[in-house]
Every structure is written in C-alpha cells, then in structure tokens.
C-alpha cells in the first residue's frame, strides 16, 4: 500500500471567459483528446499514489463521468481508486469558495484515510510531476510541508491569479498574491505534500481563523512554526487561468519539442477512451502543423491548429491557428483564424471569423454561426 493518498482540488469560482459556464477548468479539453484534470490524476497514478479524492464543485457532471472510479486513469480498484467529493459552491459570495471550505465539508472522508501522507494537486494546470520522488525527499528531509513552484519571467503580464512564493534557499518565507509588479517570480503550483494529520489540523485551524482563509493562507501564517520547503518544477507548466492561457497552452505544444518533453513513454497521461475511429482525409484536405483527433472528416485547409474528436471540416474551409473542440462542424469556405470553437458549435458556410493570437476569439458551446 502506498504511504500517501492524493487529493485533486477543483478551482471553484475560477472564470475562463465562456468556457467555465459549461464545465470547470479541469474538464476543459486539452490538445484535442485530453482533459486538463488528466494531468493531475496521471501524475498521482504514475507516482504509485492509487487512492484519490477528487473534489468537484460547480457543474460537476462532465468531471464526475470523466474520472469515474479511476479505472480510465489506471488506478487499481482494489488498492484505491477515485472517491468523488462534492462541495457546494457558495453562489452568494464566491470569496467563501476556498479549498479549506471544500475540505471542511468533507473532513470525515479525509480523516477516514489510513495513509500517513497526502499529496494535493490542482485539477486546472497542465504539467508533469514525479510525486513519488518528491514524497521520498519530503519524508527523508523531515519537512512539514513541501510546495511546488515554477520560475517564470513574465509574472507581471501572465499568472495574474496565481500565488507567488518567496524563498530563502529552499525554505519558503512567504506565499502571497501576484500583484503583477515583478517579472521574475516563483509561481506557486497549488501542489502540496504533507502529513494527513497536519492537513486536518490546518483545515480546522483555518476554519477557526477566517472563512476566507485558503490552505495556502494558513500555511503562510504558520511559516514560523513549520518547516515549509519549496521544490522547483522544471519543464512544461501551464496553469489555465484564463482564455489566453488556455489558448497559449495548446499552441505551445504544436512545437514537437515541447510535446516530447510533456508526453514521455514512462509517464503516460491517461484519459477516458471513446472507441473512436481514424479520421478520414479527403481529396482536398491540406493539413500542416496540426494535431488531429479521431472520428473526423477533413476536406479543407488546416494549419497551426488543434482539431478535436469528431470534427468535420468541409471543402474550401480554412482553419488557421485555432483550437477546434469536439464535434464541431465547419461549413464550406468558412475561414477561422485564432479562434477557440467550443464543442458542438456549427460554423456555417462562408463565415469568416478572425481574431489576434494575443486575444483569441471564442465561439460558445452548441452555438450556430
């Protein structure tokens, strides 16, 4: 039995223009065939952490059915699996939708776990992390809390809603909101390693102090008492904090080198299988520099794009630097540039939609244009 269980948190209240009206960030389609939460769950599963609690909040349907009991993500049903936990979004005042509140509502389920440690990961960022090694180091070094961070150079422009971490050596000296004031910074990845009993203590104490306290706030308040260590994460890291971040995160992976770094054979990213069939390319198809999922038909021009499952692109249509989500239909001669087209949308023949790469357009779920 592994010595840790995992918690995958939701990001209740995070808004990504249009898209979060229909599902939480964890359920966003990523690179055509994945969902953002697949990365968090696969990281834990590949690390041998087989017993997971997945927190759901707003619009839980898509995620509840996607993660199921954990089989799709290679979790051994006997040694663990996925337990889905719900927290009710406080619609009156979103400031109270903290992760501490979600934990508190499910404290009995957390307390019932028999593993000594817990690894907490966010469902709304794309990255890989070897928690098995991090956990061993955490235990060996006698840390109270290990936090993951990623060094960035554009903290003044991106990562707006992320927290930043201050460090002296590897010791965390502060966790604070990103005020967009500095460019070089350590972005906190919302990943924690700590003992289960400490987590329970922190949750209970945070609840006593303030209903607005998050787990990070609580740890920040305890930096004097606890040994809190930051570990730098390197490689691909994309927190999906807004539509631009979502667009950029997909587009970055059209570079085969980035893809090769994120998707390696010994660290598979699991997702739910759909029994799809290969995509049919017709005579007038002209596809370059793109990812194309199964079950589609393509008879138009596609470049620099991610084409989801079951997408139909008619003759003469052109798709340039777009993310086309599943089951979208693109009519003859339509022209799309720098667009994110949500599931089941229909773009009529001849429609022209152009945006800039630094402000991509968004076509709503099931929209007809």
């Amino acid at each position: 039995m592994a010595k840790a269980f995992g918690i995958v948190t939701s990001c209740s209240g995070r808004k990504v223009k249009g898209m979060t009206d229909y599902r939480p960030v964890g359920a966003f389609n990523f690179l055509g065939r994945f969902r953002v939460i697949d990365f968090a769950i696969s990281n834990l599963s590949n690390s041998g952490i087989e017993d997971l609690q997945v927190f759901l909040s707003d619009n839980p349907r898509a995620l509840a059915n996607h993660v199921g009991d954990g089989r799709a993500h290679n979790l051994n049903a006997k040694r663990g699996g996925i337990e889905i936990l719900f927290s009710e979004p406080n619609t009156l005042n979103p400031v109270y939708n903290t992760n501490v509140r979600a934990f508190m509502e499910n404290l009995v389920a957390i307390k019932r776990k028999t593993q000594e440690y817990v690894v907490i990961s966010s469902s709304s960022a794309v990255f890989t992390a070897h928690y098995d090694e991090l956990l061993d180091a955490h235990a060996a070094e006698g840390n109270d809390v290990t936090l993951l961070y990623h060094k960035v150079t554009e903290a003044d422009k991106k990562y707006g809603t992320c927290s930043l971490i201050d460090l002296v050596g590897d010791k965390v000296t502060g966790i604070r909101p990103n005020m967009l004031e500095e460019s070089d910074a350590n972005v906190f990845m919302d990943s924690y390693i700590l003992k289960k009993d400490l987590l329970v203590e922190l949750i209970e104490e945070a609840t006593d102090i303030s209903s607005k306290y998050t787990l990070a706030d609580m740890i920040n308040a305890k930096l004097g008492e606890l040994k809190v260590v930051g570990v730098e994460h390197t490689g691909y890291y994309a927190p999906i904090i807004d539509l631009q971040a979502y667009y950029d995160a997909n587009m970055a992976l059209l570079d085969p080198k980035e893809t090769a770094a994120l998707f390696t054979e010994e660290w598979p990213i699991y997702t739910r299988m759909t029994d799809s069939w290969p995509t049919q390319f017709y005579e007038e198809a002209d596809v370059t520099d793109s990812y194309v999922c199964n079950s589609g038909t393509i008879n138009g021009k596609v470049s620099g794009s991610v084409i989801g499952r079951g997408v139909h692109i008619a003759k003469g249509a052109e798709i340039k630097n777009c993310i086309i989500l599943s089951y979208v239909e693109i009519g003859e001669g339509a022209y799309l540039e720098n667009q994110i087209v949500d599931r089941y949308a229909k773009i009529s023949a001849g429609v022209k939609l152009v945006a800039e790469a630094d402000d991509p357009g968004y076509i709503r779920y099931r929209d007809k244009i």
Partner: protein
Amino acid sequence: MKRNEMLAMILAGGRGSRLHDLTNKVAKPAVSYGGKYRIVDFPLSNCANSGVNVVGVLTQYESVLLNSYVAKGETWGLDTKDAGVYVLTPRERADAGLDVYRGTADAITENIDFIDSYNPENLLILSGDHIYKMNYAKMLQYHKEQNAAATIAVMPVTMEEATRFGIMITDENNRITDFEEKPAHPRSTLASMGIYIFDWPKLRELLMTDKDDPNSDHDFGKNIIPTLLANNEKLVAYKFEGYWKDVGTIDSLWEANMDLLKDDNELNLDDPTWKIYTGDTTVLPAYIGPNANINTAYIPQGSHIDGEVDSSVIFTGATVGKGAKIVDSVLMKDVVVEEGAVVTRALVADGVKIGKGAVVGSADSKEILLVAEDVKGVE
C-alpha cells in the same frame, strides 16, 4: 439476450499461411486492420453489440499476443458478470492424449466441457478472419422463428464469385435443400459466410458421433452440414446484406483497407450505434507536420505524418518522414518510413522500418507487395 440462450465460438484457426510473413509472429486474428483495429475485433465487437456475452476463441497456434489481447474482455465490454472471452487451446484431458484440433468441428468437440459449463440453447460459430458488421441477435431471432436445427448466414454473390464459395441451394422459404462446395456450375448465388447458429443439443449429439467416425474430416462444411441435410433436419439460410470480406490473403487484406477510403464505403466504421471496439492506447492525436501533404487517407491518433500520403491507410504509431511518399499503401502499426522513401502499392507489416530514400513497391505491380522486414536506406 437471456443468459444461456447463445454462446459464441470463434474459430481463430492456425497460422494463416496464406498471409505469409504477416503471421510469423502474430496469429491471424491478431493481424492489424483499418488504422487501429485487429481482425478479431470484428467478430468480438459484433458479439458484444449483439448481446452475446460469452465467447470462446479457439486457436491451435497459441500466440502470447493473441492470448493476452483477447483475454482482456473489457476491450469489448465483455467483462460483466457471466460474460467473458476465453482462449481455448488444445489441452491435456484426463481421458485422452494430447491432440491438436483435426478440423473445425473437432475444435468444438474438444471443448464440449467448456460449452457444457454454460449449457447454452444455441451455439454460434464464427470465423476469426472476416471483416463485417452483423447483428447476431437478429439471426438468432430468425433461427428461433424458423425452429431450425441450424441457420447459416448467406450472402448473394455474382455467378462468377459463386464458384469460389460454399453455395447454399434453398427453396422459396429459405430452407436449405442442398449444399455445394466451390461448384463449377453453381445452382445458386447464395454463398455461405461461415457463420452458423446450431441448436446446441442437436449439434452436441452429432459431434459425439462424428468424433469417432474414421472417415470424417470433422469439418462443419464437409461433414456436419451434409449429415444434417441427410438426416432431413431443418437448415435455413439467413440472408445478410452489407459489407463482408474474407481477409485471408495479402491482396484481400489490402483491398479491405482500401475500401475504407471510399466515400460510400459500406463497412461504415463511423456508426456510433455499432462501434467496433479495440485495445485502445493513450497516444497523442495524429501529428501532421509542416511538410505534410495528405490527400485521400485514413489516419488514426498516434501517427506522425510529415510527408506525402495519397490513397493510403495509416495505422496507430506509424511515422512518415519529411519528403517520404506513401501511395496506394497500407502502413501497419508502428511502421516507420524515413525521409524521402517511397512506398507504392504495398502493405507494410507492424513495426517495419523503411530506411531513408528507399523505394518499395511499384504502381503497376499486379499483386500487392508485402513488406515484412526492414528495408535499408539508400544513402
């Protein structure tokens, strides 16, 4: 379908010698098809979709690959309670020596204890190397309505084709009155598809007699069906219309792949109400590189194309390098075609690597070239 109504047995057969080198390492039913499938996915998916939940797969030549592939009944949803896919190989029995199957009927006889353990009312006999979609539940319904001892699925063929098939002669009520194997002058154009439903108690009795008959070939077509006819049992023909292909040769396997490129392709793998299931893998979407030039093609996830592809079927994990050209060809699983190589009218077997600039196959070859071993580059 009720629990014991019908059990299926797939005759997955031997080494498939007509498929030459393709079956050196994998048994014939495990041969790849259609970009991401294996041949055996078709009878297994048909069973799953028809509600036939227990399937025995009979194979003489045991391959680790086929066994471990088929044993995961989950692939086709055949892993519910009382469901399962079981690989049945020749085995030691308390009352007999070790024996390999002597014929198609013998393969069933040798596994009577397996069948008995489910005590089915009817037995469905299938072949492991046909590509088609068929609702066996409807065939069973017909079999029961007709109160038949055996129901044989038949397909109308041309008079010319009829000379290459087992042909069923029927009366106006679809009752089979006679049977001819590859007749020179066919009396009917209804070809047997090698798909039978038998009343199990009747078949069981017949098999027990046939077993000890020294003159029998222990074969359904040669012995069991003629005996049933001779005994005046009711045999009926069940007419099937739709796509059906025996992929027992390289040419027919290639053709069956090419059929998928047709706009009006009858096989219709993109029917969500009758999906063909297969062992799926966690791969990326197809990556189409900056130098790609794809015209008519069938391309699955997990492939990597940076060259020219025209009128070809590409399989999961296949790679086409920059400047390479694939025409009228089938690249099976994990094939690598390096930069500048040209592949024409060829079927390239799983995992084969075609080196830089190599030229394989030709546009005017009569037969399709099977490439089963790595081809060196020409630098």
